[in-house]
């Protein structure tokens, strides 16, 4: 039925285009001078129909499910839903939906069968309604648009106004996305903070989010102090940055100053490949190769090494960051004016001295900005740590031990059950909020440094 609605819209808008175009051509052939060429008359009708009706159909589809569900649940016999928690209500709804879909398990109560029947009916009604509304709207708009056709009608301006509006809408989607991120995180974090006090979350030294789901279940009471989680994140980030920065900078300096042109032409795209490898691949590489290698190496030295060390996760992450840092450093070095380089060389400095003492200091702000962006990437990186780092929150600074990170906790807390009313799932959103804020601050700071520096030489 939904497809039918879209088909009606498509056919109707093409018909409206043809109708108005022909009408306009007719006027012109009658000897009148049109303000806009007839093509614009057709386009005007097309857009006038396509845009609003599409909005109506999409809104209908988004709202239909929840409205139908609410009506069905509201029409259940009195008292069936009182004293039930939200999870159980959802379960009943899911059961009714599966009965309506023809998947009946066991012997459901008669009221559930009745509700399922009502659900099926309502869905059919809604689908029929959608088609009817689409058809009527199309017809109305077609008549309205046809009446607009006249020699004086400024169809081109009309079309351009609609297109302009569409483009502004496209640009505003970016704002919507940011607002959506902030709103969803803030809303769930607020719910979390009603269950767990802010001071405990920010300053608590224990992170044990496993809370009992049923009253009689034996589990930890649940502790939500994020200090061990953020410390683990920092440890892994430091490992990654400490390895990636020297390698990235040295290879950038080599490629920028010393490498022959042909080496550069091959080496740069090869480095880009490292940046383009999906992080899930790096994660698998960490558990397949790097972690066992570190364990064997540690054992040969007599050092006990945990199976999922911060060193393995951070080390693999550094491979991902090397091309990132190297390309930022390369950009920063190239942005230093040629005069400074030529001046240093003319005074008799060697190329190494020129790079280290003249170009590098001048490029420092750009490089620092790039490294900061790399730090923000390392903090937000998810798949490598989910696969290679630990799950238990360990308050330690030793990179040979297993630590967990903010992103690992977000993913593990949200895989599986996601009811939005227990502190375990909500904690993931609180962590997400902190992650968003930390990376946002670092990004703004880094972008500012990079931009300020670029302006200095322009």
């Amino acid at each position, binding site marked *: 039925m939904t497809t039918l609605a879209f088909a009606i819209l498509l056919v109707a808008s093409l018909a409206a285009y043809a109708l108005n175009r022909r009408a306009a051509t007719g006027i012109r052939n009658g000897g009148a001078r049109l303000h806009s060429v007839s093509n614009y008359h057709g386009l005007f009708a097309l857009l006038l129909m396509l845009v609003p009706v599409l909005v109506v159909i999409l809104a209908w589809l*988004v709202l239909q499910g*929840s409205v139908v*569900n609410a009506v069905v649940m509201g029409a259940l016999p009195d008292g069936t839903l009182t004293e039930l928690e939200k999870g159980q209500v959802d379960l009943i709804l899911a059961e009714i939906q599966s009965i309506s879909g023809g998947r009946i398990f066991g012997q459901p109560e008669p009221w559930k069968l009745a509700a399922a029947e009502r659900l099926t009916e309502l869905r059919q009604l809604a689908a029929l309604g959608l088609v009817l509304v689409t058809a009527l709207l199309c017809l109305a708009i077609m008549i309205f648009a046809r009446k607009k056709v006249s020699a004086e009608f400024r169809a*081109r301006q009309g079309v*351009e106004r609609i*297109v*302009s509006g*569409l*483009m502004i*809408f*496209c*640009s505003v*989607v*970016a704002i919507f*996305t*940011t607002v*959506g*991120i902030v709103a*969803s*995180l803030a809303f769930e974090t607020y719910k979390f903070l009603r269950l767990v006090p802010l001071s405990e979350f920010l300053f608590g030294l224990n992170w044990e989010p496993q809370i009992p789901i049923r009253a009689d279940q034996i589990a930890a009471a649940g502790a939500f102090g994020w200090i061990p989680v953020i410390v683990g994140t920092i440890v892994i980030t430091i490992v990654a940055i400490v390895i990636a920065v020297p390698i990235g900078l*040295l*290879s950038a*300096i*080599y490629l920028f100053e010393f490498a022959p042109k042909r080496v550069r032409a091959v080496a740069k795209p*090869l480095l880009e490949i490292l940046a*383009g490898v*999906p*992080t*899930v*691949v*790096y*994660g*698998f*590489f960490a*558990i*397949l*190769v790097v972690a066992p290698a570190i364990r064997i190496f540690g054992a040969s030295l007599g050092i006990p090494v945990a199976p999922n060390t911060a060193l393995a996760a951070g080390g693999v992450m550094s*491979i991902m960051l090397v*091309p990132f840092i190297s390309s930022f450093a390369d950009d920063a070095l190239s942005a230093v004016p040629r005069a400074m380089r030529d001046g240093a060389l003319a005074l*008799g400095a*060697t190329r*190494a001295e020129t*790079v280290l003492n003249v170009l590098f200091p001048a490029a420092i702000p750009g490089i620092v900005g790039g490294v900061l*962006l790399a730090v*923000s990437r390392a903090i*937000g990186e*998810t*798949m490598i740590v*989910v696969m290679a780092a630990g799950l238990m929150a360990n308050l330690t600074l030793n990179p040979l031990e297993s630590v967990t990170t903010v*992103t690992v906790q*977000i*993913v593990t807390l949200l*895989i599986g059950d996601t009811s*939005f009313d227990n502190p375990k799932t909500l904690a*993931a*959103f609180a962590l*997400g909020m902190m992650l968003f804020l930390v990376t*946002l601050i670092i*990004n703004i700071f880094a*972008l500012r440094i990079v931009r300020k520096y670029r302006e200095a030489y322009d």
Partner: protein
Amino acid sequence: MSNIPSGSVARTKMDKVRGSLSRRHRKQFILQAMGITAISLAFLMLFILLASLISTGHKAFTQTEITLEVFIDPEEISAERLPRGNFDDVLAAALAADLPSVDPNDRAAMRVVGGILSNGAQFQLRDRVVADLSLIGQTIALSVPVSDPYDQLHKGLLDRETPESLRRLDDTQISFYDRLIEIGAITSSLNTGLLTNADSRFPELAGLKGAIMGSFWALLTCFLISFPLGIGAAIYLEEFAPRNRLSDFIEVNINNLAAVPSVVFGLLALAVFIGWFGMPRSAPFVGGMTLALMTMPTIIIATRAALKAVPPSIREAALGVGASRQQVVFGHIVPLAMPGILTGTIIGLAQALGETAPLLLIGMNAFITSAPATPFDSATALPTQIFIWADSPERGFVSRTSAAILVLLTFLITMNAIAIYLRSKFERKW
């Protein structure tokens, strides 16, 4: 004054400079050597990464199969009871005929014999019989996959030297294998199931079809949403937007969105799309919408760069002959910028194809044994399938994971190659 030996100062300075030259050149040499070491380290890592993936992954491209003469016993399989029937017993009996050391009446031994075959073998036989009822009572030749431990043994991944108690196959089972090899029943063939099967609990049956279809639907959704939105936003910001606080705010927003960690987009999708709008979990459609939000900034940035590269003379010429601003943009600037826009879009989609974390949060890591027929069915995607297999304890999944990664990398390389081709073919230098 003129008799002061003016050269002496200069000479001593020159000597100093000459004397220090070798030290300075050594320093330069060291810096150069360090640079070469650094970049070699990076390439070494790339090499190890690819080598380890290929060396573990290539084994999953072949599948060990066993060819059997199966007598379809009417006592075990009758036409009336189809599709039920003791297909596994029939297969075990066929195998036992090849293994003289086994007593067909010893149930425990027969279970071990049945374990040589993949769990999917009985369904393969069932489908053959259901399709052609006349096969009942006849003997047919059937080629079926062996189960994971035997597959590993055949590929040399299972060490016979390991003590028996630690091995996944005991001595008797290995002797079965040796006997079957001797009579030539076990062969290796190209593993087409890797691309034509959906996921399975049994490594020898697991394939990527579901994941590839899931990724396809997700990418299609992502493209249909992010391409028009991204281009619309980029054209507006680059060509029409007045320089005011709103457009500055949008710019800052887009730059920041490009750097937001991907897992945060997953949280957004979970809370808004699934929590508030009640969209289905695990659906590629929802995954595609999430990826679209992440891809949009990439497309916007690439499109703006492409629009900027079109020379102003074209704009001015079009305006000069009386075109409106929109006619200039849509009739001249955008067509000329199209190769750049498409290149940026393909690179953005390639990034989206490798993205994992947001898809995990919206549940695209479910265990689903059929390929999705529409974008609204539950599915996995290629990267999440890799994550699931990497987490699976069965040894057979290690090589499957590497093979899946190789498939994913093939897709990524293809997309990037198309982008590079488009750029080199259509890029115009003004």
